């Protein structure tokens, strides 16, 4: 096994651990809605929420890095350049995440000055990590980019997938630099913030997971490189062709010119197209191979990725993307419903697919199968879909009562939150959240034990 693949195992393990932290923090946030006095004055909703969404970003990022560190040496046929720096930075990265989490939980707030933004909390959704930690993320990403680009340079070997990956690393790194400023003008602040949130998460990450899924398909189903690269190019053309100006659907109401209503509405309405393409691709490949695979957990998670991305990102996103609907749905639990479904479908399922693929290789199993993965797969997906459905009901109620009828004042907000349908949705979300958490526990147990207790048809020997 290459050293970069050993590093991949560490990144994937850290990702799964942070997935757990995200789940616990999510449950706490959900329970705050049910019981607002929960930990009041100790750990308020916004801190739980920060822990929930920041660990979401970090565990997925670590999952992507783990997947790429796993596949890349095989792609290049050699160890990655600068792997020692990457190994050291892994521990620095984990340590920094721990320190930031402790500061969030213990210190929570600073005074209204730049010092607070440097050392405690930047207070911008998704990029709350203080600036010193954000600099750390940039350093980690820069070394990651050096590993990829440096190895490609040394080997003089560039495949279609690695070419797309290398180009994608540029915006991945550059856009994150947007995590630092504190622009006083809220309109300008949100304008650039969306460059980070939309173009990073909804564009460069989509391309990144596209590369990872291309390798996964080749290893899992033996799909030819020509086919996966063809689809990867189509995906890049459609994702970025619709997604770059699809950014405009975040520019409806932040003070930006009203031409964004048309541009954002049109291009974001087209954004489901590449996601539909992924579903067609996945179903086509699965059909070609008669659903036969040596790793059913990885295969099912990959299919969940294709369908989840289309439904959560595409269909759920389309529901609220036209300005005529968004005027009322914007900033409600309807958006939360879309956010949960999209992150889960677009990224989380893909990372879990890679984790199972890697486990099969590491444990040298010709066939990976078992029972527990089915329970965790079912509990996680049913739990997630249950949460999404419940939040959708709450979101409908909020959009009608608070936005449409009440006019979004404080009293209208309270009326929306106390509406019976809203409350039922919030309670139901928490219950399905518990199911999701149970699925996570089953997942971890399965990852630790699968292949060690499941029937093994043949042993292929240790992977490389």
């Amino acid at each position, binding site marked *: 096994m290459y050293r970069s693949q050993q590093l991949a195992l560490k990144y994937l393990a850290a990702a799964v651990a942070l997935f757990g932290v995200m789940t616990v923090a999510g449950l706490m946030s959900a329970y705050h809605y049910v019981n*607002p*006095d929960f930990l*009041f*004055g100790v750990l308020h*909703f*916004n*801190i739980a*929420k*920060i822990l929930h969404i920041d660990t979401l970003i970090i565990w997925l990022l670590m999952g992507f890095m783990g997947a790429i560190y796993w596949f890349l040496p095989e792609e290049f046929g050699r160890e990655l350049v600068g792997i020692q720096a990457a190994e050291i930075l892994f521990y620095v990265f984990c340590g920094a995440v721990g320190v930031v989490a402790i500061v969030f939980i213990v210190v929570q*707030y*600073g*005074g*209204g000055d730049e010092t*607070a*933004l440097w050392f405690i*909390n930047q*207070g911008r959704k998704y990029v*709350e990590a203080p600036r010193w930690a954000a600099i750390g993320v940039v350093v980690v990403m820069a070394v990651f980019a050096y590993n990829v680009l440096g190895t490609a340079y040394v080997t003089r070997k560039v495949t279609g997938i690695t070419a797309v990956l290398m180009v994608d690393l540029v915006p991945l790194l550059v856009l994150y630099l947007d995590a630092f400023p*504190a*622009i*006083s*003008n*809220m309109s300008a*602040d949100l*304008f650039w913030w969306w460059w980070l949130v939309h173009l990073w998460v909804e564009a460069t990450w989509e391309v990144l997971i596209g590369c990872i899924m291309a390798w996964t398909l080749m290893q899992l189903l033996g799909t030819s490189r020509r086919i996966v*690269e*063809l689809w990867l*190019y*189509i995906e890049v*053309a459609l994702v*970025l*062709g619709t997604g*770059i*100006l699809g950014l*405009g659907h*975040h520019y*409806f*109401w932040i*003070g*930006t*010119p*009203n031409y*964004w*209503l048309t541009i954002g509405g049109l291009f974001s309405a087209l954004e489901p197209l590449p996601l539909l393409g992924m579903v067609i691709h996945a179903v086509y490949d699965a059909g070609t191979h008669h659903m036969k695979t040596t790793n059913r957990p990885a295969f099912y998670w990959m299919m969940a990725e294709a369908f989840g991305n289309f439904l959560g990102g595409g269909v759920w996103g389309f529901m609220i993307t036209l300005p005529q609907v968004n*005027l009322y749905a*914007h*900033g*409600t*639990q309807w958006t939360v419903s879309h956010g949960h479904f999209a992150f889960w479908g677009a990224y989380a399922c893909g990372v879990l697919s890679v984790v199972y693929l890697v486990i099969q290789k590491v444990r040298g199993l010709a066939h990976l199968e078992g029972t527990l993965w089915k329970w965790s797969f079912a509990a996680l997906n049913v739990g997630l879909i249950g949460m999404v459905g419940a939040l959708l009901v709450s979101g409908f109620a909020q959009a009608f009562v608070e*936005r*449409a009828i*009440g*006019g*979004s*004042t*404080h*009293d209208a*907000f*309270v*009326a929306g939150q106390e509406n019976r349908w809203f409350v039922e949705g919030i309670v139901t979300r928490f219950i399905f959240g518990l199911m999701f958490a149970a699925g996570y526990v089953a997942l971890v147990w399965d990852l630790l034990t699968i292949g060690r207790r499941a029937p093994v048809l043949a042993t292929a020997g240790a992977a490389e």
Partner: protein
Amino acid sequence: MKFDDPAFWRAGAISTVVVMSIVLIMLTIDSLAVISPGGANVPLYTVINQHIDYKFDAKRGSDAPVIGGPEPLFGKSVDAASAEALIDKGKLVIQSRACMDCHTFFGNGAYYAPDLTKAWLDPAWETWQAITGAATREEAMVKFLMDPVTNRTWTRAMPNLGITQPEAEATVAYLKWMAAVDTNGFPPNFGRMRSKP
């Protein structure tokens, strides 16, 4: 060149990304001019010296801010530099207290607490004026921000975040300025429903 040739789609991907990126950059340049203070949609920070309202504009078919005559904040008109300093401070308070992880600004943020886009104009401040015994809306806002637990009106209370008087005043200035930003009619019908729905 055939549709099943990866080279065709590679060329398509590159050209699409280049064209869309160029269009985005052009629109960004135009948008930044519109959203800079004093631009078409975003007022100068000195707007905090004036009366601000939000009314339905039949011509454009949506709600829009209406900037009226003098109405100094805390009874004192400020110059451009002082207004900018207040807004800078207000934004730092908003970020350092992670307001966006409970509230929304222009509908962006978390959804645990009310949207603050037009909070300056919220009729609910009349309730807080009565609770705090404040003479004006801005005084009631300051008193609330400095002690939201004592002044809670609902089970889901805002926690005490150690906001000082100067910080609270800067935050109020920020909310007043923000209410004057033209947000293409978001939120719709704000404040027209005076009683609880």
